[in-house]
């Protein structure tokens, strides 16, 4: 417990009286034995004083002086300091009479009054589902406690949750005097509250967007229970460190994530395919259209040209029909035959030269 090393007060003290002696033992058997013992002691003490102080007259004053010094020391033992993070709880004969704030204070010395100084500002932390093993070379080392972290959800699935609870002492008196094992209680309550809330939820919301809701509802329930116990504890914060599917099935859950990514990827690929072919098709159709348009204009223009050419020639032809006809014919033949391989055969003598193929094969030689 946080205040254990500081105060002298012992919570498990049992049947212990203010004089540091069990009252039942003191009551029963003390009667017959003690008087001779005391007398003995006194006599011995007197003897010793006499030995120390040779002059008999000084005996009374010396005793007084020693008594005064002891009284002063005893009274002085009532000073105590309350640290800035503490509250002082003053007990008079065990009864809680005062709560003091930080500073130098005084209480009646023991055994009349005593003081307990719990740290009220220190934030305590309880971990559920894991234990921090302190800071190692790579961050803080964590040991998983599956017994605490594995729990059932409302739809009978299993989830693995790690939680941290930060709490402070809200009321030192209540914290000290109205509950036993406050820290263990906070832990048990935390576990119980978390499981109750998880038991009310379904797996998928818990894993996804339910974190905050779960945190706040757990905190609320914890505070309710602790207030019901009058524990004097304030739950500052509930943090869910980890909400995972159990290790045994985590691969399947990851696969679902992967499947989502796959589906998204497939869709994206399809869209990129679409974005690829549609503009191309539009371009292609534009090309077809333009080609057709070009063809159309070409054909029209060519026909117009040809027609015009024909008309022009025809007009001239009308003026000198025969000559023009002859001339055109001869010019055409001339041009054609100039470039061409020619084989002139008198029709009556064709027979001996057949097959013609041979003649045609090497036209250059025969020319």
């Amino acid at each position, binding site marked *: 417990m946080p205040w254990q090393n500081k105060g002298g007060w012992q919570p498990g003290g049992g049947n212990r*009286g203010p004089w540091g002696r069990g009252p039942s033992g003191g009551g029963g058997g003390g009667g017959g034995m003690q008087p001779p013992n005391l*007398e003995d002691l*006194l006599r011995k003490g007197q003897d010793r004083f006499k030995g120390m102080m040779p002059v008999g007259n000084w005996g009374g004053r010396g005793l007084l002086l020693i008594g005064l010094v002891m009284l002063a020391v005893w009274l002085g033992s009532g000073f105590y300091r309350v640290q800035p993070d503490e509250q002082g709880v003053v007990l008079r*004969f065990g009864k809680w009479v005062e709560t003091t704030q930080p500073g130098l204070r005084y209480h009646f010395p023991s055994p009349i009054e005593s003081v307990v100084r719990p740290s009220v500002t220190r934030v305590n932390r309880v971990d559920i589902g894991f234990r921090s093993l302190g800071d190692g070379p790579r961050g803080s080392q964590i040991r998983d406690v599956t017994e605490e972290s594995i729990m059932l959800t409302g739809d009978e699935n299993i989830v693995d949750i790690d939680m941290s609870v930060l709490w402070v002492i809200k009321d030192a008196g209540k914290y000290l*005097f109205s509950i036993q094992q406050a820290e263990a209680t906070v832990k048990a309550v935390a576990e119980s509250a978390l499981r109750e809330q998880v038991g009310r939820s379904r797996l998928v919301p818990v894993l996804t967007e339910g974190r905050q809701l779960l945190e706040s509802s757990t905190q609320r329930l914890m505070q309710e229970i602790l207030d019901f116990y009058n524990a004097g504890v304030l739950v500052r914060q509930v943090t869910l460190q980890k909400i995972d599917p159990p290790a045994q099935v985590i691969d399947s859950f990851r696969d*679902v994530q992967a499947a989502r990514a796959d589906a998204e990827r497939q869709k994206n690929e399809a869209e990129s395919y679409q974005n690829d072919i549609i503009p191309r098709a539009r371009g292609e159709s534009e090309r*077809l259209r333009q080609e057709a348009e070009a063809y159309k204009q070409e054909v029209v223009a060519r026909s117009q040209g040809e027609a015009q050419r024909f008309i022009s020639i025809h007009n001239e032809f009308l003026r000198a029909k025969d000559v023009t006809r002859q001339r055109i014919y001869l010019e055409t033949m001339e041009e*054609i035959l100039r470039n*061409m391989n020619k084989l002139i055969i008198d029709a009556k003598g064709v027979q001996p030269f057949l097959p013609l193929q041979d003649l045609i094969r090497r036209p250059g030689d025969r020319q």
Partner: protein
Amino acid sequence: MNRAVLTLAGIVLAALGVVGASTLFTVAEGRQALVLQLGEPVRVISEPGLRVKLPFVQNVVMMDKRILSFDAPKEELIAADQKRLVVDAFARFRIVDPLKFYQTVGNETVARSRLAAVINSGLRRILGQAPFAAILSGDRANLMRQISDLVNEEAKDLGIEVVDVRIKRADLPDANSQAIYRRMQADRDREAKEIRATGAEESQRIRSRAERERTVLLAEAQREAQVLRGQGDATAIAIFAEAFGKDIEFFSFYRSMLAYRETMSDKNTTMVLTPDSEFFRFFESLSGKGSVTKR
């Protein structure tokens, strides 16, 4: 004389001290006390502070007044629908009647073992009547209250008030957990398959739509193209017809000449001619009449 007085004073002081130690006692905050006279309970002190009792004949039993912790051991029990579950519960209790507490159980250790039995039977009775799903979820708070009430009823006889019984954990036994893991796995696998298939579906839809759109786009373009070409051809035909129609005979002559030029200008063409063709008519006669008449 002086010495005798001192001795007497010492004896008196010592006696006072002894009597005082046996008479005065404190009850600390968070505790309560039961005063026994020769073993007979006579008084309960629940307020803290300095108290007085008869020396020697009375003694004091201290008890806790705080809320005490109790952790029940894990129990495997069966819910109303025959499902097994492991329940880990804890309780918080308080000694409210020190006299009865002292008389029935005496001390905390005994009280705890009695309480364990009471809580255990309470858990079994209440949870045995509830279906598993209720224990697990919605009804848990209510069930816990019922258990508290039931346990409280019995604990009253021990001078104890059970403030609260809470189920810390309610889990399935290991074998059942394995079954749940398998089911979860199957669920996820199904989900993953479905997601992938849906992805494929979506992908196919997009692709085929895109392809359809492409086909339609191209077909429409083809249609327009053909229409345009047709229009061009028609216009050309009309133009030609109008021009060439003026003199069909000349047109066929002229066009033939053009065609010859176009088609026969190639060097690889070999033409077999007979000397009596029109072109060679001056070969045989100067007048140019010979071959024509022959043909």
